[in-house]
């Protein structure tokens, strides 16, 4: 079957948007796009179609989850009450339990406190690199995919990809984002390891790494370690200095 000009353009645009062109073809097509507004408009239409398909599928996924939740309509979730009946035979046991709880409370007090402060202050560091999406003619490098996962809060995937990059090169920036990713999934021990690695090098990320290492210590409940770091940071002229002072006033 012979293709008409419309078919030829449609195929060419889709190959461009799907990243299916060689570098030479892509450069040539981009020159055509710059010179031909009608072709550019058609390209935008196809790009919009791809976006719409994604949106439609995501909506379906969201509807599926809403339907699952709807299955619980009318359910009464029980929350364990702190008020329970106390029988005399349990009185001694209850007294022992109260004492044990009091001790546990004292032991855990610092941890809970530091954890609360951590939660108030932790936000994963912003990405400086944006990942590509299908429909855009950008090469899918490992780094782009890693940062794309990170931006999408898919920290598990980001960790896997950052580790792959880390195996290829020693880059403090990758360690820094690995630390942030681990911190975002509640793994402050692992996070701290990477922030310490960043601080072992002279980089522009020293202040930020110090801040996140301090937060990692808070998340672990290591108040002394956290305090020492925030004291150093408190002298920093950037906003991190102010934030460190605020935390120091709470711990």
């Amino acid at each position, binding site marked *: 079957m012979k293709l008409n000009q419309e078919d030829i353009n449609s195929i060419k645009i889709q190959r461009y948007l799907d990243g299916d062109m060689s570098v030479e073809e892509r450069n040539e097509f981009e020159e055509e796009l710059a010179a031909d507004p009608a072709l550019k408009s058609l390209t935008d239409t196809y790009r919009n179609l791809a976006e719409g398909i994604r949106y439609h599928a995501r909506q379906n996924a969201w509807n599926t989850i809403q339907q699952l939740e709807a299955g619980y309509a009318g359910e009464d*979730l029980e929350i*364990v009450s702190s008020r329970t009946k106390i029988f005399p035979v349990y009185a001694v046991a209850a007294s022992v339990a109260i004492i044990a709880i009091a001790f546990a409370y004292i032991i855990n007090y610092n941890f809970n406190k530091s954890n609360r402060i951590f939660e108030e202050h932790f936000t994963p560091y912003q990405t400086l690199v944006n990942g590509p999406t299908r429909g855009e003619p950008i090469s899918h490098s490992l780094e782009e995919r890693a940062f794309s996962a990170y931006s999408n809060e898919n920290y598990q995937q980001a960790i896997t990809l950052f580790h792959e990059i880390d195996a290829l090169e020693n880059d403090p920036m990758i360690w820094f984002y690995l630390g942030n990713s681990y911190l975002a999934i509640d793994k402050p021990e692992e996070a701290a390891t990477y922030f310490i690695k960043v601080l072992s090098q002279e980089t522009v990320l020293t202040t930020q790494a110090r801040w996140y290492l301090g937060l990692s210590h808070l998340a672990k409940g290591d108040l002394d370690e956290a305090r020492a770091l925030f004291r150093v940071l408190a002298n920093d002229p950037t906003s991190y200095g102010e934030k460190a002072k605020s935390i120091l006033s709470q711990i």
Partner: protein
Amino acid sequence: MYFKWVTFERLCINFKKEMTENQLIEEIRNGNQKLLAETYHRYRKEFVHWAFKKHNCSLDDGKEIYQITFFIFYDNVLSGKLEHLVSHLKTYLFAIGKNKILENNRRNNRFSFGTKEDVVKIDEDDDQELQDIREQQYQQISEGLQKLGQPCKGILELMYYHNCSIKEITERFGFKNADTTKNQKYKCMQRLKKIIERITV
């Protein structure tokens, strides 16, 4: 016959006690709705209690956050962004949930979940008017996709949402080769474009 075998095979996998969480992800990505529902149920109660006790959320807020959290997981699985877990699924879900709670606390100091607009975002950078136009366009595309029917709808969704490779789509639909699949996909997009042009006229 093929369908029956696939169903039976899936049931076998469902009841295998040693099924790993990465196998579970693969099953959910392949459309196993029963397993999806089981997984949703498995962590729901504990999550809502945790949100209530540790983060002072009301039970209703906890349920809404769980829906959003689970949607993020499901969306990541379907779109191929999450293929392998490096920690337990429970840790993964609770970490997302915690971030959502904190994010929302910082933004509003109150919860405002549950609307489709909050979850299936269009483009945060656009102004409201542009968002409305885009939403209208997307609704037309949704309508167009319904009219397009199978296998075109499936091919396009696998390509653009599930981020499947041409090879995977070729295997799933049993096409002759990758070129056949690409041609089919080109035609499907052209047909969708024409259907939408007819809708908007």
